[in-house]
């Protein structure tokens, strides 16, 4: 099978662009699950990472828990929750959040821990309180690493959200599973290509965020470690 003509043929069919099984709908579902999961994971992981990193207390526990979550097989989490709670958004969200929390948490924590102690001393010498040190010094300095964590999580979530199709709630994985079961490899490859394009878009969004949000003074500092 010639891959590129077959893909072109599939993408130019009018029916793949319309209706409930069309690319716009599937793409919206996929992005919806991914954004929701990433947002929830960030809501959990960023505060925990910032606070444990700032106080130095509970950091070991948080990182250990993150490592357990990192070792969790997504299939096990997903199918267990489906079995217990039935099919729906919940199992997919739980599996994806479990996937996204560890990289965000660990990178945020490491980012805050890695702030030069002299900077922290200087901030305290200027009369900053704990919260001010955290928000005005530690968060901006840790931001590049935090963004790396978010980006890693986002790419993993986008790529793993395909499994949502296995428990029947759509997304781009639909094309991959349907293409496999009906031997329509053009459809399957189309689905793969869409997921990869989405991941590339995610990467460039984070590159843009880094340019916009990270202070110019520390930007080149962290390129080596990202």
């Amino acid at each position: 099978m010639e891959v590129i003509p077959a893909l072109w043929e599939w993408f130019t069919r009018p029916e793949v662009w319309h209706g409930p099984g069309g690319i716009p709908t599937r793409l919206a579902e996929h992005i919806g699950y991914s954004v929701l999961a990433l947002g929830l994971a960030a809501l959990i992981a960023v505060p925990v990472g910032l606070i444990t990193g700032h106080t130095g207390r509970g950091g070991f526990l948080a990182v250990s828990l993150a490592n357990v979550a990192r070792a969790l097989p997504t299939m096990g989490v997903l199918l267990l929750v489906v079995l217990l709670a039935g099919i729906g958004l919940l199992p997919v969200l739980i599996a994806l959040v479990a996937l996204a929390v560890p990289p965000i948490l660990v990178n945020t924590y490491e980012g805050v821990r890695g702030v030069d102690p002299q900077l922290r001393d200087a901030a305290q010498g200027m009369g900053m309180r704990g919260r001010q040190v955290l928000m005005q010094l530690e968060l901006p300095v840790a931001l590049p690493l935090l963004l790396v964590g978010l980006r890693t999580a986002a790419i993993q979530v986008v790529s793993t959200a395909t499994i949502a199709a296995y428990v029947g709630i759509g997304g781009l994985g639909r094309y991959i599973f349907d293409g496999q079961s009906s031997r329509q490899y053009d459809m399957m490859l189309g689905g793969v290509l869409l997921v990869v394009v989405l991941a590339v878009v995610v990467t460039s969004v984070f590159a843009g965020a880094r340019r916009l949000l990270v202070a110019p003074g520390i930007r080149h500092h962290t390129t080596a470690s990202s």
Partner: protein
Amino acid sequence: MATVLRERVPMGEDPLIRWDWVWNNLDDPILALLLEHLHLSLVPLLLGLGIALPVGIVCARWQRVYPWALTTVNILYAVPSIALFFLLLPYTSFSLWTAIIPLTIYSLVILLPNVTDGLRQVPDHVRQAAVAMGFGPIRRLVQVELPVATPAVIAGLRVAAVATISMVSVASLVGLGGLGQLILSWGFDRQFATPIVVGTVLSVALAFAVDGLLVLTQRWLTPWTRMAAPRRGPRIGGGDRWR
């Protein structure tokens, strides 16, 4: 399908784990699948390392290759594992290679930046000392640069090991996948929670065991890192770098 599932799961009556099932099936599916899981994760890790070392050496020496290699590898990383398993099925059918090849690619993706950055971060004075002692390029690489880069390489291996071990289960969708089969065909397909819990817990335990072994390997391979007392040195490889 949702209603079917809800009807067939008598929640509350069936406990999350039934120890009698675990006890009766300890040898046959459980241990056998655990060993298959180990096999399906170790082979890709070793293959990934075997490819990442030469490619990383090339990337560290000819710096212009690196961005290209990194981009290629990052795009491969974004391909969903399930898609790679499906795409390989027509060629490798249900042999173990269907799982091994994609998992090798993922571990390569994680290892390559660590190998390259580890080699690049060898301090210049160390390299110059080796040259001054009359080391040729190959001897310098093998006896000086690779040992200095070992902590970074092992940091990468640890991340790759945990990622691979947790990803093997996805291969159960193509009939492989070690403990994933416990999760999917013994558990989910029969609406029985115990094998899912057992498979998940064993997979996590396996990840920790392999991770622990890698930590010990690093201590054994790089005894000098323990003697350098100051904890806040330059962080080679960066704790949890993922890629």
